[in-house]
């Protein structure tokens, strides 16, 4: 369990993560802000309910590993790492600028708390398999989480990893797939149909749950069950999320993989988030 801030509710954590992300988005004027708003509830539960870590020592051996396979979601993870006090809050104004520790696409060498270099999509789950095998070899009780996207279900390497995780019965591996139904070229199911998704992972030997990824109570329950599942198999939490969740005028945009937001709209979005308007 997280060691800090037990007095702050998970919805409040999610609100703050959205706020940090919007402030970073404002620095660039555009970006993967819809994904960040959509995944904020998952990250709030991951970082403030499910995982163990030490903010002052991001490489603490006993931590749970949280891998961001989707490098372009870096803005979302930075927001969570800022909220977790692994990254100082004042660094968010450097997002995506020269000499920043917060590049547009997540890289392990740049950022404390960033476990892997994502962004060449389809890498995370396989790296997680190797880390899970190695942690077992070391006798570690840590979990490896890999956050990836519905778009990455198109990558064959994802399925190589899924099959091996089932084959090795990796009960210390928890996959989280963000099904936000939006890829670069349009709605995910229109790019390639990956449904029925749950049965696919079940057929590969995984314990699968599918939840509303913007329902914090449901996420808490799913993360708990994933950790406590008694059978020797990898665990998958399929999270159906809403792009741009929490900012209705951004939710309404049809093509929101890479959002362009007008200067005055950032303040409006932050005002909506601060008011706790969740549409």
């Amino acid at each position: 369990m997280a060691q800090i801030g037990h007095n702050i509710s998970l919805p409040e954590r999610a609100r703050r993560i959205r706020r940090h992300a919007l402030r970073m988005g404002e620095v660039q004027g555009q970006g993967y802000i819809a994904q960040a708003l959509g995944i904020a509830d998952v990250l709030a539960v991951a970082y403030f309910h499910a995982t163990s870590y030490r903010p002052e020592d991001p490489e603490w051996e006993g931590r749970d590993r949280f891998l961001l396979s989707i490098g372009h979601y870096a803005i979302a993870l930075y927001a969570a790492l800022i909220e977790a006090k692994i990254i100082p809050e004042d660094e968010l104004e450097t997002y995506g600028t020269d000499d920043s520790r917060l590049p547009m696409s997540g890289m392990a060498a740049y950022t404390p708390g960033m476990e892997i270099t994502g962004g060449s999509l389809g890498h995370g789950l396989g790296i997680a398999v190797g880390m899970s095998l190695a942690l077992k070899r070391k006798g570690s009780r840590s979990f490896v989480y890999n956050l990836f996207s519905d778009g990455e279900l198109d990558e064959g390497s994802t399925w190589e990893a899924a099959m091996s995780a089932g084959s090795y019965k990796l009960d210390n591996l928890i996959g989280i797939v963000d099904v936000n139904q939006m890829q670069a070229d349009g709605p995910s199911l229109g790019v390639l149909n990956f449904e029925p998704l749950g049965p696919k992972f079940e057929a590969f030997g995984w314990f699968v749950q599918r939840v509303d990824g913007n329902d914090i109570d449901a996420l808490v329950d799913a993360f708990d069950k994933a950790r406590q599942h008694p059978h020797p198999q990898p665990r998958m939490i399929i999270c159906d999320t809403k792009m741009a969740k929490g900012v209705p005028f951004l939710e309404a945009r049809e093509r929101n993989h890479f959002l362009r937001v007008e200067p005055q709209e950032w303040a409006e979005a932050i005002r909506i988030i601060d008011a706790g308007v969740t549409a």
Partner: protein
Amino acid sequence: MRRSKYERPAHLIGNAERPRLTTSAMIASIAGADQPTRPAPFGHALSALAEKDDRVVGLSADLAKYTDLHVFRAAHPDRFYQMGMAEQLLMMSAAGMAREGLQPWLTTYAVFASRRAYDFICLAIAEEMLDVKIVCALPGLTTGYGPSHQATEDIAMFRGMPNLTIIDPCDASEIEQVVPAIAAHRGPVYMRLLRGNVPLVLEEYGYRFELGKAKLLRDGRDTLIISSGLMTMRALEAAGELRKNGVDAGVLHVPTIKPLDEATILAECARQGRLVVVAENHTVIGGLGEAVAASLMRSAVRPAAFRQIGLPDAFLEAGALPTLHDMYGISTTKIVTRIKEWLDE
């Protein structure tokens, strides 16, 4: 060059020009009939390394038996990971293990590591300077199975990958030395593997492998052959044959392709009046030959002439290895012939 698939074999229509050899089995040795060899030097060296270093684990993609890793698997079964016929996963999982402090040694064929898994080596391993050793059998033209198995361009591809060290050893004794040497180097390494009964060639030259060093095995006044991998074996044989013809040929062995020992290469090439020949088991595009040529150009070092012996820029044919090595000019006989021709020009 390739016959039409609608044309029947020459010998069946009474038109054969030479005896027919059979395609050797995939695991056949490249050793000559009377050459001393050692079995599976990589597998034994890695097993010995693992005795001393708990971090060492072995991974393969359904090719342990064909990459000599079965020796390691038998010696250390609890440290062997079968990743299935999935080279992308092989690279990703090795990256994950290295992140957790293990030293993964993975094996597959050179074609699969280079062509299929390049992105996974590049981003998951090399970009993070992770301590993963990638050991790949069937480099260049060492199988008669055709382009699906012939890694004729692996070095060209891997030379462009930052952080990656590239090793092309010549014989069994060198492989035995390379294993502990690259284990001590913290970072990703790509090693071309000679597997099975691997010839013993270098011991008589008092040779010691040093990471990043080219070594002069034999000096010569008329020509210098710069070579790596099994072509060093061929170069030494060719030099012996040339001597009988009154040609004095030196051999500079360059087992570390990257980083290249330019200082030694340039010093040797600066000696006046010699034909410099680079011999490699690789396409003439993007390998050792072009690396040496570029180095010479940058440094304004001009040998009397510069020539390349290597595989053509083509998808090669299937068949028996000796036939193919002759056809593509990397057999000892062909090296001797061509060097004599070049010296006569």
